[in-house]
């Protein structure tokens, strides 16, 4: 049996063409960083999904559509420029969150009630 397979070498083997120069690093040309929040369906919160670069808010929303909702993951998008997000300091997480640790009476399970009062 003599089978010939046609292989397309054009367009996908090395050519003796030198590549272009490496683009110079100019920090200004990097677009701003934006954080993206998506509401996956009506009635749910917007949730942080990641970040991207864009020249302005509208472009950030359009890019977020393409990057984060290709499979119907969203019905609404928020974008916030990353520099406007202020965060708690992880080094101070103790002072910040430990006061809640010993207040277990804030949880329903703290209260031992007879079985007859079900549904409470």
């Amino acid at each position, binding site marked *: *049996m003599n*089978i*010939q*397979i*046609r*292989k*397309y*070498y054009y*367009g*996908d*083997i*090395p*050519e003796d*063409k*030198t*590549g*272009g*120069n*490496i*683009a110079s*690093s*100019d*920090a200004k*040309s*990097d*677009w701003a*960083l934006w*954080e993206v929040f998506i509401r996956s369906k009506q009635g749910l919160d917007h949730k942080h*999904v*990641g*970040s*991207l*670069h864009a*020249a*302005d808010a*509208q*472009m950030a929303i359009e890019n977020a559509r*393409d*990057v984060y909702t*290709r*499979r119907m993951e969203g019905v609404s998008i928020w974008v916030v420029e*990353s*520099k406007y*997000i202020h*965060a708690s*300091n*992880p*080094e101070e997480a103790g002072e910040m969150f430990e006061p809640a640790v010993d207040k277990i009476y804030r949880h329903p399970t703290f209260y031992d009630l007879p079985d007859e009062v079900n549904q409470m």
Partner: protein
Amino acid sequence: MMPVQDFVRKDFSGDKIFQDKIDNEVKIEPRDWMPDAYRKTNIRQISQHAHSEIVGMLPEGNWISRAPSLKRKAILLAKVQDEAGHGLYLYSACETLGITREETINDLHSGKAKYSSIFNYPSLTWADMGAIGWLVDGAAILNQVMLTRTSYGPYARAMVRICKEESFHQRQGFEILLVLSKGSDEQKAMCQDAINRWWWPSLMMFGPHDSESTNSEQSMKWKIKRKSNDELRQNFVDMCAEQVKVLGMKLPDEKLKWNEKRQHYDFGEINWDEFWNVVKGNGPCNKQRLDARRKAWEEGEWVREAAAAFAEKRRLKQEAA
């Protein structure tokens, strides 16, 4: 999120507290203290991973205009677009470690940063689209499923997102091969030929043997990776050796044989000379891939400029209103 490096804790107990967190499966987040080497290892690994997604679009992009039907074209286009998305998720994760997008991309273009060597092989026939989906995405999936549990939070989250999208990639590839395997003699031969050419490079994707792998031990300790190269490779061989039967094709390895005692397939030795040769830049397409990326970057210059100018115009208009 933006990286913040001003919380660097100077006391020497930092390393121990850090390792305790890792041992207790507490994820590391961008603003948490971390050893410099942990940061650097993650930057290297995540950026390489991102570059692989982006360069990985080239061998498949090569066939979009020549897909055999509109349906196949739409599928291939969607798949390649996913890979662009994967690159973006990963570049974003990488930036949280304090390196700019531009630095990362410059490192690719200058040849300083590596990407997966598999993409330095050419895609010569339509059957290659099948073999790439089945084998290359298949190998990537094993690695990426492991990485959904990696210790650096943003990397792990990017991986969860990516893994959700990957299984379509592997399935569409296998289906391409399945159709060819039931086709004409020429189509069957194409199918086998593509498997023959992509099998060994796919095995190389898992990297050197554990005994030769320099970064492995520390990466395991930091839980950046949780399975060794050889472990993942064995999983892959076991999977494919069964799946290839469905295609009625053969994997090009005379030594491939079920080992009852090990409950694994034995397989032949990889040609490590070829592996290192391609890593060092001498694969069939290394130069072409980098040239293509640089060209895309340069030819996109006017788009970036126009978008910035348009954004500025829009801003001025809004201020005036």
